């Protein structure tokens, strides 16, 4: 398997406060990787650092190409899509406009229309509501919209959703990964559901990676689970 994303010695923080103290991890092509950890461990910061939304240092290689010095817009343009926590919905625009915004970096109108139909096939409810203002959607629907808009870095997709909706969304992540071969990095507090989806997992604690391995191994290791994940 080839490495899609490789991160080496990533440091990042906000102003004077350092949050990440040199973390290393990688994502294999076509796999789902999850980043687990408690509140304040640095999960969201990791995603923000990858996308250049905050100051960072270290190596970030996408398909072997250094993207660490690039601007957010340019990182997005080479194929890294980040669904931020709070989903980043454009609340004043319609559902359809939100999806078009997700395709902003592409020029091929026919392909965009085709992909929009694909999104609608995964999330039929969005098709029904395509002309509605996106701010009026429920949390679950907004998450669907965010996923339809972008794929790859998912920051707490389960946040604020009912357990049933969470299941549904994760089921679709699985399907997208299998059928469309989309690689994902999922950041979650809900370790249980994330581990079911993921191939590879990393545990983050106060800005350092304390464990990495196959998702199945973590799930089967009761001591590890109890120590870090609390279930």
């Amino acid at each position: 398997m080839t490495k899609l994303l490789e991160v080496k010695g990533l440091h990042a923080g906000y102003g004077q406060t350092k949050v990440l103290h040199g973390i290393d991890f990688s994502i294999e092509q076509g796999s789902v990787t999850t980043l687990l950890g408690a509140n304040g461990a640095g999960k969201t910061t990791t995603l923000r650092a990858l996308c250049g939304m905050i100051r960072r240092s270290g190596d970030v290689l996408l398909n072997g190409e250094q993207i660490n010095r690039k601007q957010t817009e340019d990182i997005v343009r080479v194929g890294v899509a980040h669904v931020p926590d709070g989903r980043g919905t454009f609340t004043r625009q319609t559902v359809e406009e939100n999806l078009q915004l997700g395709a902003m970096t592409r020029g091929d109108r026919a392909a965009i229309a085709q992909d929009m139909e694909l999104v609608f096939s995964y999330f039929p409810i969005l098709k029904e509501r395509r002309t509605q203002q996106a701010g009026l959607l429920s949390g679950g629907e907004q998450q669907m919209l965010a996923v339809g808009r972008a794929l790859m870095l998912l920051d707490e997709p389960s946040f604020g959703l009912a357990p049933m909706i969470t299941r549904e969304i994760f089921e679709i992540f699985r399907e997208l990964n299998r059928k469309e071969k989309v690689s994902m990095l999922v950041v979650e507090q809900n370790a249980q559901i994330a581990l079911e989806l993921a191939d590879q997992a990393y545990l983050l604690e106060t800005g350092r990676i304390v464990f990495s391995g196959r998702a199945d191994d973590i799930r089967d290791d009761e001591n590890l689970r109890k120590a870090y994940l609390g279930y």
Partner: protein
Amino acid sequence: MELFVQQVIAGISTGSIYACVALAVVMIYVAIGHLNFAQGEMAMFSTFIAWQLITWGVPYWVAFFLTIAISFVGGIIIERVIFKPLDNAPILSHVVMFIALLTIITSAAGFIWDFSIKTFPSPFGSAPLFGSSLISAHQAGMMAVTLLLLLALFFFFRYTRVGLALRASADNPVSARLVGIRVSWMIALGWGLATAIGAVAGMLVAPVVFLEPNMMLGILVYGFAGAVLGGLSSPGGAVLGGFLVGVIENLAGTFIPVIGGELKLTIALCIIVLVLVLKPGGLFGRATIQRV
């Protein structure tokens, strides 16, 4: 009754200028969160460029569109050179910069073209429209051009990808960057558009108020009043606010004897104060809650 109708129509036609200025102000406001005090002077400078072109013998409509293009580029350059470096600077830095821009542009215009009052041609002529005493040809032309401009802008923002990107950048800059929109350039584009709209307003109003470096001073106040009345966060509201201010100003000037022609500008200030006290969000704006 005829006087009333006449004044309403006159109000709508000057209101169309206020609407353009208000729209220009709002476009920059939604992009960078500050009121551009120099908007009027930028429009005045554009009008001088048009005047110069016409004086050199360029046909009116060629000069008209050439001026719009020059203003568009000029607006982008002003943003890139002056305001982009200020990006996250405190509000006071912006205010100082706007005032600096205002004085520099006024002085530059005075230096280049001197402060004497100049006539500016109207492509529509000043004769009454179809011999009617209700409205002059230039007033009708002003309304028509404004209407066309507003329609073009509406379609641009509603149905084009760049328009969508502009709206998205103003509403949610963080997410906009995450979908790959170059937000910083969208802000520059907003400046370009605002400056171009201001240029149209300047060229349309110049035949009425005559061209000189201070011609937009009062008009900018009316424009601000329109923007505040409609809601600073709502471009559509600002346009309507501009028209309303035009009508209110004209009716009050005509029918309230104390006000007359001299105290008209006071009305604009009264509107600003009243709206800010009673309904700070304006008629169509959203009341903004800021995290501190």
